């Protein structure tokens, strides 16, 4: 692909802190390389803002290779921008043309309050995991890798669900701000393998109870979450979670 440079207009959400009302600021950035990542483009703008003595745009990022789940920008009406199966950090500027206007917003959900600018507090996800997204095992020597046999198909499906990086794009995209794609991925990846079996009932019930407490909405199966998920987690996981939840609700002994 041919390299080119572009001049862009950015409309970025700026908000000083949780209590600030916030609003959009418009910036022009010039000479952006098509081979930069989206975050590098923001870095360029931030460097300029620092030189000008202004407050740089706060945004979340860590690994910048699409696996940590920190980056969280809602770009031009889509979480993580226009590319499918891509996190913001892996989105490259060749997705845009010279002269484009790009609107950048934080994830919008009451369960994800804005901390500053484009940074939102996603600790609700941590509390959902703490409610049951784990297995309890005895520590000690590592068990032999093949001690528990798992059918290849199950292992693959579990792995596909485990690919969820917990970025929250599903919540950002959902018209109900539902966290069910995230939650279903976490429940599925443990429900599909024998290690997750002992706690599967309490896991489904407790995690959903915690999700409701955190103020996420409910699922109406529009499929927007699946469409924007950078890890392409399947919405079928939600149906599996519903089955897990139903079975647990009917049979749990407490």
């Amino acid at each position, binding site marked *: 692909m041919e390299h080119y440079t572009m001049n862009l207009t950015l409309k970025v959400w700026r908000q000083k802190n949780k209590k600030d009302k916030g609003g959009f600021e418009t910036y022009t950035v010039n000479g952006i390389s098509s081979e930069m990542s989206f975050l590098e483009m923001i870095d360029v703008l931030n460097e300029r803002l620092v030189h000008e003595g202004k407050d740089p745009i706060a945004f979340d990022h860590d690994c910048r290779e699409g696996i940590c789940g920190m980056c969280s920008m809602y770009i031009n*009406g889509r979480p993580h921008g226009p590319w499918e199966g891509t996190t913001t950090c892996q989105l490259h500027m060749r997705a845009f043309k010279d002269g484009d206007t790009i609107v950048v917003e934080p994830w919008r959900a009451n369960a994800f309050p804005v901390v500053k600018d484009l940074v939102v507090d996603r600790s609700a996800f941590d509390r959902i995991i703490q409610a049951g997204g784990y297995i309890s095992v005895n520590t000690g020597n590592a068990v032999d890798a093949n001690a528990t046999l798992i059918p290849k198909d199950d292992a693959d499906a579990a792995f596909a669900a485990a690919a969820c990086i917990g970025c929250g794009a599903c919540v950002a995209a959902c018209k109900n701000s539902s966290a069910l794609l995230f939650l279903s991925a976490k429940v599925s990846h443990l429900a599909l393998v024998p290690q997750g079996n002992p706690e599967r009932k309490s896991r489904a019930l407790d995690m959903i109870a915690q999700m409701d407490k955190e103020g996420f909405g409910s699922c*109406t199966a529009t*499929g927007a979450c699946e469409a924007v998920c950078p890890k392409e987690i399947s919405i079928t996981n939600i*149906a599996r979670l519903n089955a897990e939840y139903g079975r647990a609700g009917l049979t749990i002994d407490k």
Partner: protein
Amino acid sequence: MGLTGIFLILFLIVHVCLNACIWAMDGGETFNIAANFMGAMYVPRVLEIGLFAGFILHIVQAYMLENQNRRKRSISYQVPMGNKGSKWYSRYMGWLGTFVLLFLVVHIKNFWTPSRFGMPDGYTQTYNGVEVHDLYRLMKETFENVWIVVIYLVGCLALAYHLMHGFQSAFRSLGVYNKRYLALIKGVGVGFAIIVPLAFAMMPISFLLKWLN
């Protein structure tokens, strides 16, 4: 929502099959007898109570859910996602359902109320010595009004899109995740959402255009 939805889908099957008797081309005899069976026998009348309960549950729960869900995002996006990733009718189930509800009010007033609480004089037919309500004539005269037909067609269209999403979504809610079944349910759902509302829509059209003798 899923459970009551599937219950109402079952009702639609009964309703559309029974109404299809108008196309028997016998001046409404088959239809009137079938309708009389539903109205005069005890079992359908008892089931009817369940049907109303099903409707009320579905509607009340839907509005409660919609209301809760709308409060989960106080600040909306400057650039909405629109159709990127989801079908418009899956996002507007509340509105589609509301249209169906408004249609239902008209529909119940047109047919259910008169047949239960007093048909106008003269609207009876006698077949084999049994006097039954002439609902066929009521239908025929109701659908002479073009505006009523338009309301019915809008109701059918709203129902079609409501089912297009609702049919498969109901099964997902109940936890069907097997890929083969999901593909089957999706196919059957789209077929159902097209065929059943289309059959209903053809009824007022048949009367309006005088296709029936």
